[in-house]
């Protein structure tokens, strides 16, 4: 199965934990596409760097736009205004590191 890796930058007024970011992404996918749609995205968290507020998420390549739309629809994390920007998308983690995380 082909996959896509997304590099994300979390912008928030307060410190956010990995759990909170994960929860926000999952809630957004569920809210927009329901349980059936969420099951097709195969979203999983690869890593989160709380110092730099970067995260890497993996999803199915056919669901890339769904995941992007869901991430864009996030307006708060833990009840505080926040936004998650997609800063790069790639087919491999190695290429993503070169492209977006350096």
């Amino acid at each position, binding site marked *: 199965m082909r996959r896509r890796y997304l590099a994300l930058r979390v912008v928030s007024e307060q410190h956010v934990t990995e759990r909170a970011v994960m929860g926000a992404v999952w809630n957004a996918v569920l809210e927009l596409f329901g349980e059936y749609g969420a099951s097709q995205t195969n979203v999983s968290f690869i890593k989160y760097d709380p110092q730099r507020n970067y995260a890497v998420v993996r999803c199915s390549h056919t669901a890339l*736009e*769904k995941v*992007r*739309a869901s991430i*864009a*629809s996030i*307006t708060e994390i833990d009840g505080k*205004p926040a936004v998650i*920007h997609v800063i790069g998308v790639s087919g491999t983690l190695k290429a993503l590191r070169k492209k977006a995380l350096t």
Partner: protein
Amino acid sequence: MRKFVDLHLRAPIKDLDQVERMVRKSSELGYRLVGILVPPNITRDQINQLQHICSDAKIDFVTRVDFSPKTARELLQDLRRFRRKFEVISVTCTSKGVARQAAKDRRVDLLHFPATDLRKRFFDHAEAELASKALSSLEIEMTPLLLLTGFSRIRLLSRLRREVAIAERFKVPVTISSGATNEYLIRGPHEYAALTTLFDMSMPSALRAFSENPLAIVERNREKLSPNYIAPGIRVVGRKTGV
């Protein structure tokens, strides 16, 4: 490379720090031109301050005014007074009469409909036919999509799907803008394009709605506002001096 445009930043122009944060965020996310909503009575100094903030952020700036007249006559008066002062004019259509007048008037650039009161979204076949002849563009604001939840968002998505289909059928250009009031509501052009798939807009049309369509409006109006412009297709190319 595509030049992305956000024609609707609702930045509070009295709070220049906030304006600066929003403009910097837009620039960082890849926009090359922003339209900042200004009141019709804005002073030249205030425009210069906005211009200065935008040039610091290496982003092009256009002035935009929104009219929400109650009657078609009021709209005509506003257009007569302000058309030559601002680069982009948008009309929020709150009645069918205003919507029809705005759609057929070539001085109106953007047709805007309230996102929360769906009974006042008058973009139907008749409106689209008038708009396609007058080069007006249908504006879709993305902030309500981010802020609404549940049933209200479902209804808005359903309405937008219908409007986009009508616009495509009648070849009315669609312009997508953020309508953001703070930097947390600004998304990158590709993120907005992904969101537009929720109302069945194709990715190429969505990217056009963020770049070519708004750019065409700005270029057309800048040409019209230039002192060399006479009429469509006619402009002064040189002036004879010393006569």
